[in-house]
């Protein structure tokens, strides 16, 4: 069964190239531009992994991650933080309870490696 990855990013270009890369690598990709959309999707459907941008309008990605990791329903969904910021990314990921993180610009091999490690 094809694994579903929920990408949450407000940058359409990033969403575009990442979707292309992941689909090419055999994943099903669900796009969401902000936390609200992501939650709306998660309430009606499930996914195998969330690739979550940190700097988002309204609710930041790390906040959303923290919320999900505190809910019984979503705590088991692996979350990879995805950010262009170089400041203390590791700390933010740890505090938010994320399973991994990757900085932008990203190395496609590194991204796919991390996803593969988490969901196969």
């Amino acid at each position, binding site marked *: 069964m094809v694994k579903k990855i929920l990408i949450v990013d407000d940058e359409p270009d990033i969403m575009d190239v*990442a979707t292309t890369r992941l689909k090419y690598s055999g994943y099903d990709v669900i796009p969401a531009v902000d936390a609200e959309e992501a939650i709306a999707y998660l309430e009606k459907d499930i996914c195998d992994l969330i690739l979550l941008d940190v*700097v988002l309008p309204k609710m930041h990605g790390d906040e959303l991650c923290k919320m999900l990791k505190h809910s019984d329903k979503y705590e088991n969904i692996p979350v990879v933080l995805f950010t262009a*910021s170089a400041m203390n990314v590791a700390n933010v990921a740890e505090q938010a309870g994320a399973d991994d993180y990757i900085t932008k610009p990203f190395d496609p091999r590194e991204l796919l490696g991390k996803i593969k490690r988490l969901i196969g």
Partner: protein
Amino acid sequence: MKFAAKLAILVLSIVICSAVFISSLVYFSNVRTLQEQITNKLEFRAAIAIDIVDRFMYEREIDLKSFSVRLSYVLGDPNPDKIKQDLINYRNENKNYISLSFLDLDGKRIADTSGIDVDQRHSVFVNSKYWNDTVKGKSSSGQLVEYSYSLGVPVIFFAYPVYVKDRIVGILVARVATSKLYEITRLAMGKDNNAMYLKIDLINSDGLLIYSNYNRRGILKDKSGHYSIFGEDVVAGRCRINKNNFEVIAKEKGYLDFMGNGWKVILAVPEKIVFAPANQLRNRMIGLFIFAVFLSLIIILFFSHYFSQPIIKLSWAVAQISSGNLNIQMAVSSKDEIGQLAASFNAMVKSLKKAREELVSAKDYTDSIIASMVDCLVVISHTATIKGVNKALCDLLGYQENELVGQPIKKIFVQEEEEEEEEEILHKYFNKIFDEGVVHNIGLTFFTKQGSKIPINFSGSLMRHNKEIVGIVGVARDMRQIMAVIKDLEDKRNDLEEHDRELTRMQMAMLHIMNDLQDAAHIKTQFTGMVSHELRTPLASIKEGISLVLDKITGEINDEQVKYLTIAKNNVDRLDRLIVAVLDFQKLESGKMDFKMESNDINEIVKSVENTMRPLFNKKGLFFELHLSNNLPQVEFDRDMIVEVLTNLVNNAYKFTDSGGVNISTKPDSGFIKVMVKDTGIGINKEDISKLFQEFTQLSRGKGGAGLGLSICKKIIEAHKGKIWVETDADGGTAFYFTLPIKEQRA
């Protein structure tokens, strides 16, 4: 009274009291003993005496009875001459009788030993009852005692009837001198010394003296003087004391046929005779006591002198001490209480002396302190007069000490003239001292002898002695110099205040600038963060877009397309590294970098960098050598940071080395681990070395880059409290060194 006299009186009293007591005891017991003795003796002797008298009387009766039958008349020859001869013969045989007579029944003398009154009637005898009784043949001896005028002595008559054939033919009369009775009673008295003082009375039943050894004239005339006290009811044989005499009376009891005439013997001894031995003893004792008192007086005088001498010495010594002489010692060697007292006294004197010396030296010490004081000292009495001053005060005011002592304080203390209530202010301060006990640092003014004024700083406190307030001790300091200094200081303070205001203005300006700068720094940090984020996001799209094409996900491309897309991708990566470097540097510089300090093995880090970098070196044909020490301890550092430093240094070596290679070594270096990265590259110009670790510096050998790598390395190593430096040979490559401190092992 002197001690010796007291002692003498005491001892004398003891001697006299004991003497009086003992002698009284002896005297009275002696008297009692003597009394008992004499009583017993008198009673015994009186009994014996009367017994002897009885026997004597009985014997005379027997005498006459036996003689009466021997008379020649009785034998048949009534010749008076013959009878006379018989009588004389008999009297010669028996010395008891003075005379013997033979009377016919008419009472006419027939014969008489002395031949007196022959043929005459014996009127005295014949008229007596004794005669009548004798004629009737029932006589008893000694019934008649009469004075014999013919004999000239009192005599006792003994008469016995002369029987011829049971018929009385005449009466035999014998006379015994009453003194004979004394002789015989005298025998009963023994050879006692007191016997000669014995008064012996022999009295008849009427108390008339028959014989008295002391009242011969009273014989047959007087009654015994002693008899009256016994009276008729007296119990014979009991000794009594009467009128200073011991007296005893013994009654005739009779002997065999002799029934007695009721005679009595009275013995009397004067008390003074009886008690003479006791009195003699008493007198001797008095003599002895006088001697004893005299002797004790001498002894007392000697011993009281002996005993009182140390006390006199002591009292002399005490007098010496009270007059202030402490250089005395008592030379008493005895071990008694006096000796102990003397020893204690000497110890006391010693400690007194020591205490006085201490006091004197303490006084000298305080005197010299007071005299040497720089500040003025003044002692003020409660009546506001000066009691004492020190030298400093005299010198300051120009007085002699004796000019000030006893003067009112107004003489030296004044207040400013403009103060109208000057005296009251002065008094106010002194009252304050009396109320509160102390005042500190009040401003007053002294008057000098010359009339000038000296401002002073005055502090005073109450002086007490045995809890009584005796005055005020005050210390004053000449304030002229200090006033001058104060004035100078005030001037300077005014200047300083001006400067201060200036400074404050400048400080305010600086603060504004600093705020601006802080704002700028904050903006810079935010700006850098924002810039990096905003730069990197499009870079991500660019890079991934290129990657998608290069990875032929969007379809086949030719080699030339691959080549240029690769160039584009590499430059995107380079641009990203540059942005990251700028961010890192900014974080290190602002101190916002978080270090994860953990215990790490430096050799492992080196090997990990080797793993990453060796392929590059191999590709370029360069060697990559390691010389790692095996004895390195674990060191605390941030692994990622040190990896970055090493990577940076190795990268530099790679960039500037075309032949040869790189050599990395680790070794311990006195508390540090020293890491060396040495290449065989082009080296560094000496003038560049100082600029090497400055940020944004490109050296003359430049190969591009932001010029941040070594600056970042320096900041990381310094943040780890290590050092980083470079050594170079002009022709022989470059060696970078850095050290990391070995954390001290906990004991």
